[in-house]
């Protein structure tokens, strides 16, 4: 089966997942993003690459941050941006997901940025557009269920490359709720694609999916052992509703075992960087001293996120 996000010429048509995305395309996105970082530092923060194009932010799940960064990225590319916060999955409201899409296509959409609570929703939209002869409209996955969040993965890769340069000698640890994390899945695919020799996941059994090793990672339950010698530490967000119940006894006990403190961070390399996709739960997965400390690159991640999203959108529009 052809990767549904590539067109017949092997170029990027949609960005749905980092899985099976060829390394040269990943690198080209990261390279393209570099000059966009400086666009933001200019007085006039706009380039005309998407002038006349209409981008729909189609958010079936609430997210202020991701939606805002996509909106800024599209506007800096001179696109017209429409935000639709549909909130809940469409089926209960009568209109189906694909009816919503068809309506927006009729308004001459050029690109959909899709956030949905169900894994695979952006794939469904992309397949629907292909099946109905409208494959020229691009779909960007802005997070689907537990499956993927490819622009987050790309901005994480951009950040790591910015500080560490070469993936082929890095040890990266991803800590926390891997089971429910689309951020973790996308980052793992991106890291393995770029040849990272050692990717670790650190979590209790309850927060790891079955056969997670098949993604190419090493499993650690002991955070201290897992952090030892790491170049990059990526902390994952723990959702409120998962802090108490059958997955974990309490937020406090989670922090004790898997929260990142300055003391635990000392086990990583002296120049290790600390990342977090946001929004952070201070005192649950990360201590404030670390979040605001000298190893933290959490705010640069946000800045780079806009540049990476500009790169993705401009590349799609050019293909």
């Amino acid at each position: 089966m052809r990767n549904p996000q590539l067109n017949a010429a092997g170029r990027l048509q949609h960005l749905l997942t980092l899985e099976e995305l060829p390394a040269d395309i990943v690198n080209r996105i990261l390279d393209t993003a570099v000059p966009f970082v400086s666009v933001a530092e200019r007085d006039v923060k706009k380039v005309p690459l998407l002038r006349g194009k209409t981008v729909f932010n189609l958010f079936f799940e609430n997210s202020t941050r991701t939606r805002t960064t996509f909106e800024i990225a599209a506007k800096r590319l001179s696109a017209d941006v429409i935000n639709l916060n549909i909130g809940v999955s469409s089926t209960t409201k009568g209109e189906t997901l694909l009816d919503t899409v068809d309506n927006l296509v009729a308004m001459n959409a050029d690109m959909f940025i899709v956030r949905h609570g169900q894994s695979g929703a952006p794939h469904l939209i992309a397949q629907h557009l292909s099946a109905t002869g409208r494959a020229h409209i691009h779909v960007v996955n802005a997070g689907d269920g537990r499956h993927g969040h490819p622009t987050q993965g790309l901005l994480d890769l951009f950040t790591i490359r910015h500080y560490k340069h070469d993936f082929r000698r890095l040890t990266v640890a991803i800590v926390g709720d891997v089971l429910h994390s689309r951020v973790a899945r996308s980052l793992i695919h991106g890291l393995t694609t770029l040849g990272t020799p050692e990717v670790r996941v650190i979590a209790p059994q309850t927060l790891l999916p079955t056969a997670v090793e098949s993604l190419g990672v090493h499993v650690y339950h002991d955070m201290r052992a897992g952090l030892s010698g790491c170049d990059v530490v990526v902390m994952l967000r723990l959702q409120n509703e998962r802090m108490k119940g059958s997955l974990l006894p309490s937020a406090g006990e989670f922090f004790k075992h898997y929260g990142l403190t300055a003391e635990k961070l000392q086990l990583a390399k002296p120049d290790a960087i600390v990342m977090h996709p946001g929004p952070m739960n201070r005192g649950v997965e990360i201590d404030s001293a670390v979040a605001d400390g000298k190893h933290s690159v959490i705010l640069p991640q946000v800045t780079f996120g806009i540049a990476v999203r500009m790169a993705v959108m401009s590349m799609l529009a050019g293909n």
Partner: protein
Amino acid sequence: MKIEIRNGRVVDPGQGIDRKASLYIAAGKIAAVGEAPEGWHANRVLDAAGLIVCPGLIDASARLREPGFEYKATLESEVAAAVAGGVTRLACPPDTDPPLDEPGLVEMLKHRARSLNQAHVYPIGALTVGLKGETITEMGELTEAGCIAFSHADAALVDTQVMLRALQYAATFGYRVWLRPQDVHLARGGVAHDGEVATRLGLPAIPSFAETIALETIFDLVRATGVHVHLARLSTHDGVARVRAAKKAGLPVTCDVAIHHVHLCDVDIGWFNSHCHLVPPLRGLRDRAALRAGLADGTIDLICSDHTPVDDDAKQLPFAEAEPGATGLELLLPLTLKWAQEDGLPLVTALARITAEPARALGLAAGQLRIGDDADVCVFDPDARWIVEPAALKSQGKNTPFLGVELAGRVRYTLVGGQIVHEGA
């Protein structure tokens, strides 16, 4: 009406027959095989040279969607699909709306099916009222109305005390019980097999031991009550092993597998193909191999279509939200032939799984071509190739993972009670 099915290859697994012969039908019954009865004069001769003549297929699980889901399919559309697929008798599970928990509903369904005069329809009654798992149904009344067994379909039967009582009651009167082995709690929210594919795609998963834990519970209750339980839709390697051991220990159990699970596994989900959203979930390669081995050695008694017509809208949704199930009545025969061919099994062995064996599990005196039996016959061309596409299916449900796939095996004639109810091209 006297019909002669001339010069076909007669394959009747129930009698162990596989030879070239003509079949003679008179007054709705099988009159003779091989030698024409004395003074024979046929009203109609069906030339079966190069074709297979076998008992009408018996599908142990086909959802007809009536009552309650007529927008997905109707009795008319689905019995037409049945006979187009060579199926002359089928059992339908009780998960209609309302569920088949009242004699009136069952009688109406039987009556409607009879008036269509095509495939025989055998309702499986609900084991508990409303399939709620609380109160057992009037199994005696339901049996009189036409139920041939009782099941809980895919609905949760959480309370093991209710399950015990239901099995005790059924055992008292000798009713058959069909159960799908799946632990309700472990399956909660799951839509795919708990393995690498679900992990990659980020789909909530159902572990294999949800099946084996439920199996062991059922086995203990079978030991306690002596009831005959048919285990519906086995899906895992370990499940097959447990059933094999239970049968060896003499437990009165039979079991089935859905035809999709004989051919597909979780990898076929690809990029979220909702046609592969099935219940139970498609498992791993190792599980599929074990299901095939179980079928070959008789641990698994029969194959059913698990026919579940779903409307397009309900499938055009993200994988987990899409309604599970696949259409199957018209694919049961070609997919069974495909399995036999791939595993190098004799036709007589393969066809047993969709004729004589389901008849036995359902307690029907059918599924064979004995002299004097009702002439339910399927005549098919094993080499005719066709492409599975919506227009080729009579079922109102066009939902199948096999869309676009070329299959071999097409039904030429289906006879029910000596009447030709389907003539294919």
